[in-house]
């Protein structure tokens, strides 16, 4: 299965590659929709509902991007990718943007020739285990069997963590979150490790979430963000500033509901610039003047997207933590819009 897929992907990489050099924005406009790579199904981040509509934190970023480019948040198609296939899908041109809780690392940026456009979720790798095992710390995990998704940074962090602490473990490599759940819930592995947001999402869908505990240790920095291919700076700018626009919108209190009234009545020059009332900022990135207003109109600002998908009132129940705005004790910070 995956061998064929990889070969097809490699072949596609060699054939489609030619089209990649041309402007992604022009290609996207010509085909009329954005192809967005998401995960194969992680509740809260990217998951199709019973009708096949994709929902989630990463999905909503793509909808905002579609709003900015086309003024229509539905002008986006989703490609589910596994941890293994995601980068090939992006560099072969199969997807235009990858929003799949992907960790920004040096080698992915430099060696894999990808461009991370920002960070939409500051995460860290954690461990989830069965409460009945009586484990209280990751340092008690010597000899444990650990389920882990292949092709992720968590796989490397795990090897480093256990090596540094002189402990042994038995890795059980798996392809998707669904397979991990099957093995973990049947206790074929003692521990499931991935980003803590992913653990929370998996725990939320367990039959009895109380029987599972997330251990206190965070063993890595996992800055997650959307990414595009190297070499198309115009498209990267669009992807970067859609994300920034959503964060600035939260800062300025612009929501999906009040974006129109804000645009007509604002006295704040930065809001006026952002919403296209003042200046020609949309033209600088090849979009219409109201691109940011359309992006915000799609699914709301950063806070709205967070709260609707993974916030405290959802089944996932993540608090903002370090992902709060810098003005509210977090580290979320967008460059000035001018």
């Amino acid at each position, binding site marked *: 299965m995956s061998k064929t897929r990889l070969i097809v992907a490699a072949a596609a990489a060699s054939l489609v590659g030619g089209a990649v050099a041309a402007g992604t924005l022009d290609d996207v406009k010509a085909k009329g929709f954005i192809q967005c790579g998401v995960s194969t199904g992680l509740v809260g981040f990217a998951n199709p509902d019973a009708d096949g509509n994709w929902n989630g934190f990463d999905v909503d970023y793509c909808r905002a991007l579609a709003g900015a480019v086309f003024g229509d948040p539905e002008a986006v198609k989703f490609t589910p990718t596994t941890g293994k296939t995601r980068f090939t899908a992006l560099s072969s041109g199969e997807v235009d943007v990858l929003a799949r809780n992907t960790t920004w690392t040096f080698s992915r940026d430099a060696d894999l020739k990808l461009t991370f456009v920002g960070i939409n979720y500051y995460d860290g790798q954690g461990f989830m285990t069965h409460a009945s095992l009586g484990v209280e710390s990751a340092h008690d995990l010597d000899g444990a069997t650990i389920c882990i998704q292949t092709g992720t940074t968590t796989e490397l962090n795990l090897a480093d963590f256990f090596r540094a602490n002189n402990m042994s473990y038995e890795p059980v490599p798996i392809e998707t979150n669904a397979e991990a759940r099957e093995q973990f819930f049947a206790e074929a592995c*003692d521990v499931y490790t991935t980003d803590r947001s992913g653990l929370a999402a998996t725990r939320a869908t367990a039959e009895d979430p109380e029987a599972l505990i997330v251990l206190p240790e965070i063993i890595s920095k996992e800055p997650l963000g959307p990414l595009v291919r190297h070499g198309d700076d115009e498209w990267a700018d669009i992807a970067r500033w859609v994300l920034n626009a959503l964060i600035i919108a939260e800062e300025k209190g612009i929501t999906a509901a009040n974006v129109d009234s804000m645009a007509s009545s604002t006295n704040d020059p930065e809001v006026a610039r952002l919403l296209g009332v003042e200046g020609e900022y949309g033209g600088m990135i090849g979009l219409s003047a109201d691109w940011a207003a359309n992006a915000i109109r799609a699914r709301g600002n950063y806070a709205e997207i967070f709260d609707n998908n993974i916030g405290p009132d959802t089944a996932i129940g993540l608090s903002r933590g370090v992902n709060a705005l810098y003005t509210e004790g977090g580290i979320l910070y967008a460059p000035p819009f001018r």
Partner: protein
Amino acid sequence: MSEKRSAPSRQPFRIGMLLYDTRYRSLTIQVIALMGFMLLVAWLISNTIQNLNSLGKDVSFDFLRQPSSYDINQHLLEYDSRSSHLRASMVGLLNTLLVAVLGCTLATVVGVLIGVLRLSRNWIVARLMTIYIEGFRNVPVLLWIVFFMAILIETLPRPRDFRGDDATASMLLGDSVALTNRGVYVPEPLFSNSLGDVPILGWFSISLDLITLLIVLFVGITGAGMIRRRAERRQAETGVRPVTWPIRLGLIAIPPLVLLYLLGFHLGFPELKGFNFSGGIYMRNSMIALWLALSFYTAAFIAENVRAGIMAVSKGQTEAAYSLGLRPGITMSLVVLPQALRIIIPPLISQYLNLTKNSSLAIAVGYMDVTGTLGGITLNQTGRELETILLLMLCYLAISLSVSAILNWYNNRVKLKER
């Protein structure tokens, strides 16, 4: 006179003859087709290079020397996360070979059995075998692999069920074998006076105990063979066959037993420690699921090959054997099967190759074969799609060509010698 008659053959060559002369036409078409094919290949290669350039990537195999940074659960070589990507690939390759060898062996045994039983005159046995064959070969092998894995995970007890006074699960065969939903633990052979290991090219080491044991066993079998041949000579000369089996058995069995005693052979039993059992040989359920699924699936095809081979042997052979007074079992093993083998071997080769290549589905259950290490994690962590896929194809090509070379050699030995 003769000069005149041969004149037409000296007709000067004209360019049109390439198309209109039947002697040259097929050649022309072949040359054009070859040129077209080469152009296609050249275009593909130049396109690949050009696109890699435009992506800013080069083709380089240097990544193979970098540390892999990931762990592999089942490694037959010494391996840790500081080892190189090349070593990780080798570990994967050995895992592929392991499951391929185990799979081909079990598939052959099961396949021959099922194939013979399908021809049984017992109605129920024959129909049951038909159900087996049609069931296995008409469902994709990937589903069988996942299905076997699900059975192992969901039905077998967890390691913690073995713990405590009110344990719900217990070990089998006098506390020596543990069946868990993570795999099967069996006793391992240990030597208290071990001879140690010999490193080979600094790459891996082989246990000297094993080598010594194999040498002793080989010498014993060779000696036993010499005694048997002498007995045959004696029988040919005098008509009386001397009783040799106690000597031969002793020659084969006693030296290894003495050696095992000298080496201090004992069994290490698995024990529940912490999260898992430790000690003993740990066969992960990913390997067991993959092995069983591939074997039973391929066995269905082999069974059909065996049935075809047996049915192709003329019925007269069986009747002749019966008329000589041979019983059905002996007839099958001494008369029919040796002849059927000639028909069975060639398709058997392709079944072995299929099994080996199907083992690349291993990642579905998390078995770290060469597709999982080189074509999976290494590809993903280094981003070298082209290089890793090329190496991977080379690996499978090498395995397949070797298997097929060995079996072709065997086929040449058993096939009907025609003069």
